[in-house]
C-alpha cells in the first residue's frame, strides 16, 4: 500500500475553512502571477467555496477591455452612496427614540413659543401700565360695596380676584361703566386681551367718563392680541386728538413704525 504521508498531509486536505478570496487574489490567480503555494491555497479554497469558485470563473470571462479595479471601486462607491450616505434606518434603540422624542418636543415647544410670543412684548411692558384707581375707597370690608371690594383687590394688584369681583358687580349692575373699565384693565393685566377688548368696547359704546382711557387701553389690548392694524388705528386716533394720552400715543406709533 502506498504511503501518502507528508509532514502536513492532514492540514493540507482537512484545513479549517479560510476567508474568501480578495479581489486581488482572484485577479492575480487568473493572470497567473501567483506563487505555487499561493496558487495551491487559492485552489484549495475554491474547491470548497462555491461563491469564490464562481467568482473565479466570472473573472476569467471578463475581457481585457474591462478595468476590474476601477469597475469594482465604482460599484463600491455606489453601494456606499446607497447604503451609508442615504441611510434610512428601520429601527433604532430606545435611547435614540427618546432622544428623537425629546428633540421633537423641544422643537415643538420652541415653535409654539415663537409663534405665540408677542413681538411687541417689550413695548407693552414698558408702556402699558394699569390705570390708577380714581375712586375713593371705604376700607371697611363689612360696609364696602362690591365695586369697592373689587377696586381694593385692583389696588393690591391682585387683578385676577379683582376681575372676578368686577364680574360679580356687572352681573348685578351691567351698566356700571367704572366696573367695565376696571374689569377691562384687570383682564389686560391677567393677559386676557379678548375679554379686555369686550369690556372696553362696552365702555366706548356708552358716554362714560372713561372713554379716552378705554380707547387707550383698547389699543393695548389689540396689541396684546397681535392685532397691529387695529391697535395702530386706535393709537393714531388718540394721537390726532388733544388728550392726556396723545403725546404717548404718538411715541407708540413711532415705535410701531
Amino acid at each position, binding site marked *: 500500500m502506498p504511503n501518502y504521508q507528508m509532514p502536513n*498531509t492532514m492540514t493540507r486536505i482537512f484545513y479549517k475553512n479560510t476567508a*474568501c478570496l480578495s479581489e486581488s487574489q*482572484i485577479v492575480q490567480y487568473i493572470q497567473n502571477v501567483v506563487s505555487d503555494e499561493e496558487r495551491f491555497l487559492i485552489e484549495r479554497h475554491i*474547491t470548497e467555496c462555491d*461563491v469564490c469558485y464562481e467568482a473565479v470563473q466570472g473573472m476569467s470571462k471578463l475581457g481585457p477591455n474591462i478595468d476590474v479595479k476601477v469597475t469594482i471601486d465604482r460599484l463600491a462607491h455606489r453601494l456606499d452612496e446607497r447604503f451609508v450616505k442615504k441611510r434610512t434606518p428601520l*429601527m*433604532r434603540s430606545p435611547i435614540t427614540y427618546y432622544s428623537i422624542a425629546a428633540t421633537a418636543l423641544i422643537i415643538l415647544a420652541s415653535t409654539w413659543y415663537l409663534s405665540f410670543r408677542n413681538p411687541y412684548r417689550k413695548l407693552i411692558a414698558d408702556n402699558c401700565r394699569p390705570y390708577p384707581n380714581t375712586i375713593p375707597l371705604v376700607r371697611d370690608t363689612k360696609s364696602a360695596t362690591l365695586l369697592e371690594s373689587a377696586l381694593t383687590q385692583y389696588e393690591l394688584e391682585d387683578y385676577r380676584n379683582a376681575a372676578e369681583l368686577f364680574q360679580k358687580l356687572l352681573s348685578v349692575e351691567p351698566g356700571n361703566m367704572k366696573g367695565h373699565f376696571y374689569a377691562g384693565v384687570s383682564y389686560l393685566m391677567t393677559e386676557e386681551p379678548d375679554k379686555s377688548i369686550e369690556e372696553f368696547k362696552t365702555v366706548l359704546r356708552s358716554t362714560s367718563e372713561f372713554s379716552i382711557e378705554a380707547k387707550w387701553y383698547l389699543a393695548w389690548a389689540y396689541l396684546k392680541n397681535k392685532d397691529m392694524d387695529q391697535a395702530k388705528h386706535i393709537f393714531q386716533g388718540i394721537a390726532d386728538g388733544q388728550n392726556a394720552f396723545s403725546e404717548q400715543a404718538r411715541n407708540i406709533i413711532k415705535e410701531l413704525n
Partner: protein
Amino acid sequence: MRLFLRPKKQISDESLIEAYRSSGDMGSLADLFSRYTHLVFFICAKYLPAADCEDTAMEIFELLSRAMSIHQVTNFKSWLGTTTRNHCLMKLRKNKGITFESIENMMENEENEKDFMQNYDFEHLLESEALVQSLNRSIERLDERQKLCLKLFYFENKSYEEITTTLQISQDQVRSHLQNAKRNLRILLGKAHYAELSNA
C-alpha cells in the same frame, strides 16, 4: 469615506446581520456587503455580459437588503451566492424582478444543502499515527478518478490546469472529484476513527 473598501473583518457576518436586523444599522449592512462586493460582481460576470454586471450587482444588493430586513439569514455567504446566481439566471431568462417567495425558497434550499460532515473536526487527530494509516487505507478505497485528482492536487502539488491537461477532464470535473474525494474520505475516516475508539 469609502466604507465598502475598508471591510471590518474582525466582526462576523452573523454579528453584522444581527446589528442590521435589530437596530436598522445601515453601517453594519454596508460593512457586510463590502466583504462580498467583488465576489458578487465576478459571479455576475460568469453569467452576464460585462457591461451588465455592475448594475446587476447593485440590484442584487438591493434585493439582499430588503430580504434581510424580513428574513433570518443563517449562512449569509451561501445565500448570497445562490441569490446572485439565481438573479443572473433570471435576467438571462428575461424574467424581470425577483419575488420574496423565490428568495424564501432559495433560503430553504440553502438550509437543506448544508453538509453535515463539514464540521467534523479532524484537527485533534492530526498527530495520531493510527489516523494517518487510516488515511492511506481510505484513499486507496476511493474511486479511481477521485484518487487521482486527490493525489495530483494535494500530494503532487499540481494545479487545476495541470490536472485538466493530465486527465483530459474539465476544471469543473476536477473540482467535483476533489469535493467527492474529500467527502468520502471524511466518511471513511470518521468510520475508521469510530472503530478505533470502539476498540480502545
